């Protein structure tokens, strides 16, 4: 063959394989409202930045007539590219090729790009769209999953790992996303479950649809498995790209700095909150009032909404925000919100992102269901995560900080670097009513009019203790600040924390209350 012929031959081979499962299968994929694996990769990455590897990989399975079947790329596409210039490793399962089922070579391709991502210390994006294990390949496909999980775990906290669920992701396959940092789902397209509706019906007689069992909304709202919910694949890709701008490439780097911008909100910060601690407000308005350009990128918006987590920038630097949400369940900590906050705090700590905590909460949620669901061990995760974190940690107490909640929400006692409080802060062992009832029980019981006496004593307690000054007198609060000073004082605190360096005792790893 002449040189030209060789090149033409290569092009022809590529063209054929790039068609994946062929026209009919692609038509089916489109009919399901889904993009093809290749389209997805190209939509996420910067234009013309994608370079593919292992295009010509083929499976080696012989049983059940597999030796006669050719599966292009073995049902998965791997490669590298960039997002806004950041290097990215990516794999995308191709549902048009044998339903994206995972066989040995399919898994080998995935682990190859994972190894590459870890070695090069760059983020990994995995797009899941697969019917599950390739049954014909038996234990080889199980081996493949295990090798993926192992790599997910080893890479955890070293490089950002992002999972995108754009089709079925069932059985063992769900555990790779579960081990990664952020899971993206799309309404009506993502399906995640360990045991499908079919088996559940046969074994238990329970009828449930795929969507109700493990659809995008279920994982975004109820299970907390998903971190980002989108209505379309395109919206999902925009979310991924935005996330990439907030996080560093790996754990030895800082997130990219952006040009500083003023917040969009020009009003008074104190006007955003009601003074009566019993009345709600949306704490996200406060965050948006503080961060650059009013741009707050919320994570797990629909799950455990009584706590708000997400990224924003202060003078161009990425900050992780953790805030109680008085608008939902009065902002209490419970099992779900503790899990949500603790994991995010650990993420920020792993990837050198300072944490700002905005506190306004009445304590842990009371109830037999919470106690039995393990609110002790779940709640302990928040204490663990805050105490362990060595990134700059700053707390602003907006209103209530009662009891265990005061300790848990990044208090001085757990190692906060700076503690600020608004003059509206109430830092106390419990709310004034409860405290007065206990402390002044004798006086109240002995009074001619106990109700009058109770009111009097509650008022007395409130004036004396329901403020930030008792804690400030002990040095537990560094400064009582005006709400409008919040942004500037945070900027200053971050500036002087730039070189923070604390060293904990050497250990293999701690034993967090998982």
């Amino acid at each position, binding site marked *: 063959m002449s040189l030209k012929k060789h090149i033409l031959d290569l092009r022809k081979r590529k063209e054929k394989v790039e068609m994946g499962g062929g026209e009919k299968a692609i038509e089916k994929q489109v009919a399901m409202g889904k993009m093809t694996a290749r389209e997805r990769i190209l939509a996420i990455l910067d234009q013309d930045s994608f370079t593919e590897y292992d295009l010509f990989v083929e499976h080696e399975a012989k049983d059940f007539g597999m030796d006669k079947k050719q599966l292009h790329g073995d049902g998965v596409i791997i490669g590298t590219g960039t997002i806004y210039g950041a290097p990215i490793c990516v794999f995308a399962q191709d549902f048009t090729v044998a339903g994206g089922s995972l066989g040995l070579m399919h898994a080998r391709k995935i682990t190859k790009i994972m190894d590459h991502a870890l070695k090069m210390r760059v983020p990994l994006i995995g797009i899941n769209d697969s019917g599950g294990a390739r049954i014909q390949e038996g234990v080889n496909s199980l081996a493949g999953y295990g090798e993926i999980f192992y790599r997910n775990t080893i890479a955890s906290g070293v490089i950002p790992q992002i999972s995108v669920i754009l089709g079925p992701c069932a059985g063992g396959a769900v555990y790779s996303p579960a081990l990664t940092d952020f899971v993206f789902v799309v309404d009506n397209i993502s399906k995640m479950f360990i045991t499908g509706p079919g088996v559940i019906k046969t074994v*238990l007689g329970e009828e449930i649809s795929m969507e109700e069992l493990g659809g995008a909304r279920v994982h975004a709202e109820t299970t907390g498995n998903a971190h980002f919910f989108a209505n379309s694949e395109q919206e999902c890709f925009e979310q991924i790209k935005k996330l990439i701008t907030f996080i560093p490439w790996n754990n030895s780097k800082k997130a990219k700095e952006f040009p500083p911008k003023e917040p969009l909100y020009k009003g008074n910060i104190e006007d955003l909150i009601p003074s009566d601690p019993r009345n*709600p407000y949306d704490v996200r308005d406060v965050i948006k009032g503080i961060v650059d350009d009013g741009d707050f990128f919320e994570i797990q918006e629909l799950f*455990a909404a*009584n706590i708000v987590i997400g990224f924003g920038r202060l003078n161009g630097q990425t900050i992780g925000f953790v805030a109680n949400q008085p608008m*939902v369940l009065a902002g*209490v900590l419970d099992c779900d919100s503790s899990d949500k906050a603790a994991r995010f705090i650990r993420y920020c700590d792993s990837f050198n992102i300072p944490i700002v905590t905005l506190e306004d909460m*009445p304590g842990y949620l*009371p109830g037999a*269901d919470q106690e039995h669901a393990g609110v002790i061990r779940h709640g302990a995760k928040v204490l663990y995560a805050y105490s362990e974190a060595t990134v700059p940690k700053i707390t602003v107490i907006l209103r209530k900080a009662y009891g265990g909640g005061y300790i848990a929400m990044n208090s001085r006692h757990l190692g906060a670097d700076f503690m600020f409080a608004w003059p509206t802060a109430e830092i106390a062992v419990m709310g004034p009513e*409860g405290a007065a009832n206990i402390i002044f029980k004798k006086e109240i019981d002995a009074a001619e009019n106990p109700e009058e006496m109770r009111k009097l004593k509650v008022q007395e307690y409130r004036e004396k203790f329901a403020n930030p000054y008792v804690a400030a007198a002990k040095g537990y609060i560094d400064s009582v600040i005006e709400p409008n000073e919040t942004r500037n004082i945070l900027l200053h605190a971050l500036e002087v924390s730039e070189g923070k360096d604390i060293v904990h005792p050497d250990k293999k790893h701690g034993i967090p209350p998982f």
Partner: protein
Amino acid sequence: MSDKEELVGFRVHTMEYQTKVTKKYANRKAWQAPDPNEIKSYIPGTIIKINVKVGDKVKEGESLLVLEAMKMQNQIAMPFDGTVKEICVKEGDKIPKNELMVVIEE
């Protein structure tokens, strides 16, 4: 997030707050003390065999029925000496977890 009508009074310890509740919170089940006379399924499964009938006197440890779940045949044993008062399932029934199967009395 600003619809005032969704706000409800929500008690945490001694204070009542105005706030919204999550679906999960609204759907939570109130705790109920278990009744020792009610034998409920501890796992979802299929009733394979019923070994007693209403009125039978049964000794502690004797099998009331067999509940097959996850390919295991589980003997559901009498927790104390007593009488079968009511049988709420029949052979072949597929039942969920916490389903009332047998009512007994001492």
